[in-house]
């Protein structure tokens, strides 16, 4: 489903973020990328959702090389990708419902469709009763659940999570990982980037990243 072939990424200041990275994600897999801060985990995710372009190499989404995708096509690609961030990236002036609904608004969904899908997703992540709350009144774990709800409300092909538990305590971390597992069981491919190797224990597919190079897999 996603394949990176000999990808290099060097920033304008000369810093090498990725060196000859090749990896493959099949449909329905739950994959971890682990590595310390600055190892290049976020760069890999950014290359997949086209926030950055590789200096060299190919990034295939299906059979399309997104490294060469036209700028105007990027929004349409992103509609197939759900993204979850460490800092949640929720809009403070919107309620939980409105934050989740935004992902459907931007693709021009009808109000009926938005209502139906948002309620269903909020039930799935366990926030049905918090739909009218503003993010500021929620715990970190709840905010991350809202972010996950927003990422999956569109039924994306893949969910990318960049340090999704980085700001959470151990109990909430387990909750979020369980939720990501549930999403994966429903058929969505999940790619989690984390610095915490404990999260990836007992997982079948783990890529370890160090100084921009994949050291296993």
């Amino acid at each position, binding site marked *: 489903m996603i394949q990176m072939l000999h990808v290099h990424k060097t920033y304008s200041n000369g810093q090498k973020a990725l060196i000859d990275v090749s990896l493959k994600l099949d449909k329905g897999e739950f994959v971890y990328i682990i590595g310390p801060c600055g190892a290049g985990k976020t760069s890999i995710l950014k290359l997949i959702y086209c926030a950055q372009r590789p200096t060299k190499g190919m990034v295939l989404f299906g059979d399309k090389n997104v490294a060469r995708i036209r700028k105007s096509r990027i929004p349409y690609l992103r509609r197939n990708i759900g993204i979850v961030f460490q800092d949640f*990236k929720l809009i403070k002036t919107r309620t939980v419902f409105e934050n989740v609904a*935004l992902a459907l608004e*931007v693709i021009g969904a009808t109000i009926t469709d938005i209502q139906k899908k948002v309620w269903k997703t909020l039930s799935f992540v366990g926030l049905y009763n918090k739909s009218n709350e503003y993010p500021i009144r929620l715990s970190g774990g709840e905010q991350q659940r809202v972010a996950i709800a927003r990422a999956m409300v569109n039924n994306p092909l893949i969910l990318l999570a960049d340090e999704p538990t980085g700001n959470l305590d151990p109990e909430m971390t387990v909750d979020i990982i369980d939720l990501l597992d549930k999403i994966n069981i429903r058929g969505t491919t999940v790619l989690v980037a984390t610095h915490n190797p404990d999260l990836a224990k007992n997982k079948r597919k783990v890529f370890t990243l160090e100084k921009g190079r994949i050291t296993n897999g």
Partner: protein
Amino acid sequence: MFLKKGFYFFDKAFQGIRQNPFINFINFGTITVSLLVLGTFLVIFFNLNRVLDKWRYESHVTVYLYDSISFDNTSDIKDRIAGFEEVERVTYISKKEALNIIKEALQIYDNSFEGLEVNPMPATLEIQLKKKFLSSTGVESFVARIKIFKEIKEIQYDQEWIKGFSAFFSLFQIGGLAIGVGLLLATILIVSNSFQLGVYARKEELEIMKLIGATDFFIKVPFLLEGVFQGLLGALVSIGLLYGIYQVVIFKVRPFFSIYIRELDPSFLPLDFIFGLTIGGILMGMLVSIVSMRKFLKSY
């Protein structure tokens, strides 16, 4: 679907205005002041143009004939002049008629003509030229061509000072245009800077929208509508203010310049100018939001 989307964009635009009322007020105020100054220029330009046109179209060429020429010769020269392509109409005024006209015009000095044994007034031909030949070069070329007639003693035409006034008017037009363009550019610069503050206040939201698949068009349209609304409101308020100021000025100066005001017959901007000013305001608002959004979207 189209209507729903339209409604959504309008809703978002008004939400944006509610979120940043101060910035929106500043933008609206700047556009209003700028269009008010521009509108003032337009009122002056429009009225000067009207006066110039009036004078130009009312001007005519007066040909004074020698007393010695016979009636037949007079008819002949009248016909020959009437044959020129520039001529709309030629009116013959005999010596007697000329005297009566002058007597009528100067009736308070009626007695001064009583002692006259000989009529001093020459017979004249009042020549009205066609509109398209009423430019100063058109009149001058016509005058040069009729000068050769030996029956003509003198030719008078009021193009000289109209030419001077036209030159002043052209200067005013160029100056007004330069000031207008400068003013518009300055307004766009000022408003686009404060507009960007509004965009940056919602930076996080827009960034998230981009990450979840919003197209640039989807992000831009509410801001474009915000700009259109600011421009439209600015234009309407500036036209209202301009009309108020115009009425006050005319009312205040009328007693002092009543004769001239009657002669000049001042008028407020006609509908097409008002329409143009309104469209100008809308375009200015649109341009401001396009410039601001372009800068923002380029960096994300």
